[in-house]
């Protein structure tokens, strides 16, 4: 088996895309936005009369926006609900290369914690290695160049020039 065969096999076995129903995607998002708006509405009640400037207080603007957002989201959700009930789905939403994207998301989410625990340079070295691999940078020379080049750039530009304490 040649290297080309192995690569072709790897390419075939790679999960290329995931499709989600756009109606359910819309509905989940609408629910999240309604939840967020309701949280703002509840918290607005804690803003008392001491924040009044005339008839308007600190809660007026967020409450108005939250109510308009809830109404807009309901208007957006209605056609999706209708399509679900009528079994008439629209074009699904495609997430291409989900493994790379999810890995990327996880690496970004973990980075602040890793940086706080180990410091910038060790955390960034590991992060760049795994992120590079997730982003399809497989040649050792490219990967090594990416890590060393980026860390050097961070040290010169951010630490030395901008004075960022890394």
């Amino acid at each position: 088996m040649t290297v080309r065969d192995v690569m072709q096999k790897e390419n075939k076995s790679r999960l290329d895309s995931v499709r989600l129903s756009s109606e359910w995607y819309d509905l989940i998002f609408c629910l999240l936005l309604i939840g967020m708006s309701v949280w703002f509405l509840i918290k607005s009640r804690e803003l008392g009369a001491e924040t009044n400037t005339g008839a308007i207080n600190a809660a007026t603007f967020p409450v108005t926006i939250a109510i308009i957002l809830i109404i807009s989201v309901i208007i957006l959700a209605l056609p999706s609900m209708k399509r679900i009930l009528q079994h008439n789905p629209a074009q699904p939403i495609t997430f291409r290369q989900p493994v790379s994207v999810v890995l990327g998301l996880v690496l970004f989410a973990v980075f602040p914690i890793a940086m706080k625990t180990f410091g910038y340079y060790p955390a960034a070295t590991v992060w760049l290695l795994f992120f590079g691999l997730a982003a399809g940078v497989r040649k050792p020379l490219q990967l090594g160049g990416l890590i060393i080049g980026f860390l050097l750039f961070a040290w010169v530009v951010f630490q030395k020039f901008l004075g960022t304490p890394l």
Partner: protein
Amino acid sequence: MDILTGMMTGFSAILSLKVLFFIFIGILLGYFVGALPGLTSSMGMALLIPFTFAMDAVPAMIMLVLIYSAADYAAGIPAILVNAPGQPAAAVTAFDGYPMRRQGETGKALTLSITSSGIGSLIAVIFLIATAEVMADFALAFGPAEYFSLAVLGLSLISALSMGFVLRSIIGMLFGLLILTIGIDPASGAERFVFHIELLEGIPFLPALIGLFALSEVFYMLEEVFDPPKPVEDIPKITGSFSYLRPYPKTVLRGSVIGYFIGVIPGAGSSIASLVSYGMAKRASKKGDTFGTGNPEGVVASETANNASVCGALAPLLALGIPGSASTAILIGGLTIQGLQPGPLLFQNNPEIPYSIFTSLVLGIPIMMILGLFGVRMWIKVTSIPKGIVASVVGGISILGAYASTNSEFTIGITVFFGIVGYLFRKMDINPAPIVLALVLGVMMETNFRRAMLMSGDDLMIFVIKPISLVLLVISVIVLFLPFLQKLIRWKKVKQ
């Protein structure tokens, strides 16, 4: 200040080695961002803002503006070479530029793109210099009611940014307005919705910006990292001759005027400018039916307009403090970081800023043309950088940029949050631009609303009895509901 004195002030502000260096750097970076498909000017500017922390206001703003301008300038190169526009506006350039390449006229197409972009920008800079301070003087008479209405108009124009998804864009805008209320209330000083001590001063703008524009794009790049690259094997010969433009003087002038004035309208942007200019050139041309098959006039019409619109977009930003696009919203962020307030007072208090921007644009255009004409070999190499490496570098700079803004890991978390939000929102056709416009204009809207209400003794009529405010509100309502009305009319026609 009269224009001549202003320009002299501008020239004296930029004529130092340090500023000239940043002019060159801005153009180079803008070219890089524009030539690389997938990177946009707004993304490049968001990533570059952290680098301006240690800089003076003049070189910082000049560098950001030139990144914006050069990115649009260079976007025609990949559109012609590989049919992958570097910026959305250059998609129109590809209509004729790419067929010209396939017909073996790559050198001519690139020369036309670069020279017509330069002429278009130059004409638009003249318009900008002539109109910006006039607009600012007019806006000096504005009070809180007018500013509130102006912010409403700016936000209502998101329907123009929505590319057919008006309701979704409105939801994006409302999301931005709602999260903007986190932090200290601008009128009473009370804490609002602060669930973490580092949110006391509100959602940090720069990390949010980097997340929405740069990080969300990184996730999109990750979706494409295994796509086969589009290699460019031959290096086209570019003559740099202006003689190619000789048959199209009317198209150049028309494109520049259309581009500038469409650019001035907040929300319209360079994509609409190049489309309108292309459409009008097609109608006016005797060979209109050959547009889309490699007609050089199509390249000229698109490139003049989309580059002229960049100068147009700077006019309301500098004169009124109203960003008309994602890129100009980022420029507002850049100005704020430097402690400057965009708007009419900028011309009075810091005239060196707008005028140094004008003069740097004038000085930058020949540099852009030279870089375009003689650096084509380099820009071809740029288009072939693997997406995986670009994604890793952009991701790494996003993290560093967010951290450098406050030296706190918490802001990296904010960037990651907005990156994920931007990515998931884009999947449901909600563009990040309305969210950023809301973050910029929301404070202006709420603060001036409350000021106006205080001044009027809580009488809402203040927004209607002031004529400028009334006109702005009427335009806002028309702009906001026009797409719905058009949809309704189309639906009725289909039904009939």
